[in-house]
């Protein structure tokens, strides 16, 4: 299964009021292209910080379910976040890693994700992806304001 199909299956479980944090690289571009919605926040820069941002939201909005989707390279870059997640025990935060053992958006260079074992993260092994047909995310301020307005509804 490729990354886009795996994300499609996961997005089917996202409810109308649920928050989605999409990490740097192909994950955010796939979600933006195929599953854009106001309660998505795209972390285009600051690679490795998606889970921390998700935790900040989950701590302050305990009634909301927060889905964090990240690639293996981003997960490896922010491994310390999983320790804090286990410490904080945020029951409504769901962390999914789409693992293709590669830095897809920089040319498919290999990662060391074979050794990635970070419960409670759920890791899906996926085929390597290309950026064919994927849109670029533009206008971050507009997307942020749309996200924050949707949270108020």
């Amino acid at each position, binding site marked *: 299964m490729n990354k886009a199909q795996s994300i499609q299956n996961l997005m089917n479980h996202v409810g109308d009021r649920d928050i989605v944090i999409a990490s740097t690289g192909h994950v955010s571009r796939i979600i933006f292209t195929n599953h854009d919605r106001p309660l998505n926040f795209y972390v285009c*820069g600051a690679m490795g910080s998606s889970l921390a941002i998700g935790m*900040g939201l989950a701590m*302050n909005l305990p009634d909301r379910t927060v889905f964090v989707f990240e690639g293996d390279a981003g997960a490896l870059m922010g491994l310390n*976040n999983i320790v*804090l997640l286990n410490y904080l025990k945020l029951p409504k935060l769901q962390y999914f890693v789409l693992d293709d053992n590669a830095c897809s958006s920089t040319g498919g260079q290999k990662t060391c994700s074979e050794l990635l074992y970070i419960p409670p993260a759920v890791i899906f092994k996926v085929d390597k992806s290309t950026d064919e047909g994927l849109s670029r995310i533009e206008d971050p301020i507009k997307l*942020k304001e749309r*996200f*924050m307005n949707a949270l108020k509804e």
Partner: protein
Amino acid sequence: MGVPCSELKDFVAELQEDSSMEYVPCTCEKQALGLAVGAYLAGKKPLVYMQNSGFGDCLDMIASLLIPHCIPVHFLVSLRSKPWQHEWMFKITQEMFLLLDYREVTFC
């Protein structure tokens, strides 16, 4: 949220004793900043505290996430100049704030 510094230990001690909020033992400055971004998106006005050495670690997050998204986060940064391992970061810290176009900076 933030990362302790010896210069900030009284401030951090007050946070730890404050029963009105949960003390979050962040593992690094970028993590504290990530939590602050999430808190801001949730409608809060976050402040992150750290030593200037850790502020250096935050530069990419500020440049690639906070500034492009217009996400305001207050920083409380302690400025260490000694011993020797702090000297270089001390020399460039004020300039880093100016390079980032942070206008409302008070050095004390």
